[in-house]
């Protein structure tokens, strides 16, 4: 896996000196990192280390007091959350963000909302361009159904499906946006071993087949070390190490801060 990212290419995302404060609490202090095209970049750290804060900065939900975040020619600091989605940042949530009473296809189609051009009236008439567009959008959704092997559940209500499948559908919903960068917030939280292995396989397949860059926040250390190209370790809002999984694992500060406690 480590040979996957091409080192010569421009980074897709560059965070430079990002500092985020809530009153007197420093959630992030001078955090800098790069994510390259096609790279699977993991962020790990103990509870409260600032992992989700980083996601919220990338999504423009939080606005850091200092620092710059460049993504694909856009400045994310100061943008509005909707804009980041339009620029190509998709995400999944720790707690599922799905419509439980809609079927799988409808949930995926919602993810394609950004790419729909039809106006309200034309949509009502479902004629001409509106019809062609819906067929095209549906085809895109079917590609995701195939990639994530959701065929069997196509018309099942999402709320009636097992948790592991719902997580997969949520991943599909994020993919339906056709993001350039996908943020995965604890994709295997609460999953059993088998479901975790499945999810890891799908993430790798997305990287291979779609060539997406991904940032992964995860507690499951085995999974992170197995599939990530590079890992950044946070502790109390500060970066204590960034590098290949094998190197990070042997970093003394990381062992003290995190892995040491865990094992």
């Amino acid at each position, binding site marked *: 896996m480590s040979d996957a990212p091409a080192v010569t290419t421009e980074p897709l995302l560059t965070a430079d000196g990002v500092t985020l404060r809530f009153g007197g609490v420093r959630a992030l202090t001078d955090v800098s990192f790069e994510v390259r095209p096609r790279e699977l970049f993991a962020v790990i750290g103990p509870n409260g280390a600032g992992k989700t804060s980083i996601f919220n900065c990338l999504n423009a939900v939080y606005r850091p007091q200092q620092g710059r975040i460049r993504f694909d020619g856009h400045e994310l600091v100061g943008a509005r959350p909707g804009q980041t989605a339009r620029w190509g940042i998709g995400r999944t949530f720790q707690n599922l963000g799905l419509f439980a009473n809609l079927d799988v296809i409808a949930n995926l189609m919602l993810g394609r909302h950004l790419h729909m051009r039809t106006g309200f009236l034309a949509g009502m008439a479902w004629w001409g361009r509106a019809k062609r567009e819906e067929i095209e959008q549906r085809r895109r959704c079917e*590609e*995701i*159904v195939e990639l994530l*092997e959701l*065929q069997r559940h196509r018309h099942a209500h999402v709320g009636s499906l097992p948790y592991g499948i719902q997580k997969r559908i949520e991943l599909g919903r994020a993919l339906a946006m056709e993001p350039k960068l996908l943020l995965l917030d604890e994709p295997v939280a609460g999953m059993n071993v088998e479901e975790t292995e499945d999810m890891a396989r799908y993430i790798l397949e997305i990287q291979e087949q779609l060539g997406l860059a991904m940032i992964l926040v995860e507690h499951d250390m085995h999974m992170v070390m197995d599939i990530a190209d590079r890992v950044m370790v946070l502790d109390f809002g500060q970066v204590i190490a960034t590098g290949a999984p094998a190197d990070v694992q042997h970093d003394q500060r990381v062992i003290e801060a995190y892995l040491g406690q865990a094992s």
Partner: protein
Amino acid sequence: MTTTAPPDASTTTASRRTTTRTIEPTTLPGLLVRNALEKPDAVALRKKHLGVWKQYSWGDYLDRAVRVGCGLLELGVDAGDKVAIQAENRPAWLFADLGLQGIGAVTVGIYPTSPAAEVEYLLAHSESVVLFAEDEEQLDKALEVRHKLPNLRTIVVIDPRGVKQLDDPMIMTFAELEELGSRRDPDGWFARAAERNADEIGVIVYTSGTTGPPKGAMLRQSNLLAVGQSLGDTFGEVSDRDEVLSYLPLCHIAERLFSIIDALTVGWVVNFGEGGESFVNDLREVQPTVFLGVPRVWEKMLAGVQIRLSDASRLKRANARFWLERGRRLAAKRMRGGLSPVDRVVAALGWLFLYRSVREKLGMSRVKVALSGAAPIAPQVLEFFWSIGVPVREGYGQTENTAMATLTPVGDVRLGTVGTPLPGVEVKIADDGEILTRSPGVFAGYFKNDEATADTVDADGWLHTGDVGHLDEDGHLAITDRKKDIIITAGGKNISPSEIENKLKVSPYVREAIVVGDKRKYLVALIGIEPDTVGDWATRRRVTFTTYRDLTERPEVHELIREVVDAVNHELAQVETLKSFALIPKELDQEEGELTATQKVKRAAIAREYGDLIESLYA
């Protein structure tokens, strides 16, 4: 999203090059050419891709097969060369199969579930020069072992998504092979296809074998066509308006009969669904008119109905109980020959109240020819399907006679028998009880194994099946067991373990049963539970469990299976009763050598692996 579509996902062929050349329809490629000439635009195949059913006409089918065949000629493949295919059922499988047989090459099918070591054995033993590998997963297996395969020259990947080794000189995609083939004059293929004759070997089918390494049964074109004809005649009113769903492994002779051979002789439409977990949905959408199932498939369907019923309201359950009871009486009459006018009224009412909806949900609403084969099926399962008006007929045969021996006749079904010989088949019982068959389906021998061939086919052309059984006064064949599986207890009694095992497997809670007792004082059984039904049962009783293993260790589950065993013991003679049993702590798996590719239990492997468990039952 930029994903390249697999080569058999699109039916738009750039240029149709259908020929006017006729070829004697005495081989499978000959039949394909005949069909493409007679009805070039009629639907031959359907494939569900991205949620939509796509069609291929007979003209498309031939065109694609010719391209593949020409591509292989470009690669230097010659008559008599072996070409292997390891893929799930899909149109490309058929294009490759017919295309390569047209140039006189021989197809070797490999189960998609076969692990790398088995792939190595089959490719090495068959001396295959080209391998069609479905996708990244299958390619990885081949790449792991290719350095040990001097004969293997090219690997053709059908679906190249995610494959990183495409610049490897040994690897090409299916689309590239077709492109290569389309640059060559198709007449080359037709000329070679015209040279083929019925005595040539068309395919080698490796028998999974519950003991020893797989053996390669060589089947002539004449074997394949004889069985296609015989079955087509037996089914009666089948035509090109019929539909089948292709879902059992195509490298097995049974699915080959339905998806390829009889599709070519009868001309029915072959549907390829999304497979795997989606099988149930596929079946419901296709609603095939001709359906072949192995016992496991029929059992699963029945178990599904039972689970749904236990979830249904009281009224619905009462309705189902009432009509299933009526159905049982109808089933008995149907098996004996027919329904009286009164029965027909009952059947019509039952259709309204129950049978129609059950059959629609199972995907069986249009079935007129239904078959079970490859292993014995429990009479209770058969009875259920006859009750709802699906006349499942049991067939008997083996790879070595191209799956052609006996089939239960429609109006005279005797439970516990596998019916009467098919047209053109002779059946007799040898002095030691072994079943012998002779027919135009008897194979040409095992590839590179004359000794085994001589043991199997005698000088008079009789095939020794290795099964023990007897014929009743009207020529219905009943099978006792595999000759080598017969248990002789310490007391000297001959016992057929599979008879007892099948009685156990009638229970929806039992998936596998292995009866042990050779040279022992009494019989015991290892039982594998059916996780779906037992899991459902446990959940309803608020018995908590985490994994399969945990489920097998619950005392409640042990008690549940004990009841099943006790019930079966009641039906058995004293020496046949099971004195003890144990639950197998894991699901049996092909990868670990416990099951064959056709999901048959390998007794020797189980006896070895669970030796301690067995000993504990005798302690």
